[in-house]
């Protein structure tokens, strides 16, 4: 690492952080017990990871303005789209009867509001909120 100048070092560190986040995302995807937690892990860890990687690359190419703007564009675009796709997939996954919530999932307020036949989703009224607020996790 001694051979790297400061800029390269910064760049490398940023890249490394990014890569580690992405590995964590991969690991999360590998390890997590249900779809939603896998998504929770990957969508963000990867977003974070790609952010750092893009920053690292941008530092390396700092002089090339179009490249930097393109890299920023990539980052912004991912930032904009990743949650949307996560939402879409999560919603679809939830509506898919084959998807099983992890056994440790202790509360599911969506379940009673979603009408599987009509695909309608109600909001929670005051009464329901009140009842729901009483819930506490069981100690396992």
């Amino acid at each position, binding site marked *: 690492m001694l051979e790297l100048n400061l800029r390269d070092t910064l760049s490398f560190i940023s890249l490394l952080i990014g890569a580690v986040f992405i590995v964590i995302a991969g690991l999360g995807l590998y390890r997590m017990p249900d779809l939603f937690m896998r998504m929770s892990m990957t969508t963000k860890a990867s977003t974070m990871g790609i952010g750092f990687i893009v920053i690292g690359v941008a530092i390396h190419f700092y002089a090339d303005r179009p490249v930097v703007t393109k890299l920023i564009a990539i980052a912004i675009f991912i930032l904009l789209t990743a949650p949307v796709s996560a939402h879409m997939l999560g919603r679809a996954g939830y*509506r898919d009867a084959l998807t099983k919530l992890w056994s440790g999932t202790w509360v599911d307020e969506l379940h009673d509001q979603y009408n599987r036949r009509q695909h309608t989703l109600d909001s929670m009224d005051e009464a329901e909120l009140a009842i729901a607020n009483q819930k506490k996790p069981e100690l396992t």
Partner: protein
Amino acid sequence: MTLAAWVLYVILPLLSLALLFASYRVLKGPTIADRVVAVDLITTIGIAIIVCFAIVSKHTLFIDVAMVVALTGFLGTIAFAHYIEQQKG
């Protein structure tokens, strides 16, 4: 070692590792949504590999490729999600 070499011998292998994890999930599933999440991650890793590869190759052109991947990959995931829902009809 230059930055390019560091990227080559550290960053890209790390990303490959992540790729392996993601591939496992593609193959394993169990639901289609799981696979799609994994493909989505693979797309992201792909973007990471490509931009890193720009450093290795000293060609910034590859960043354009990454942009295309980012833009169209989103469409793929949305389409999948959309049709997983449709299936229930």
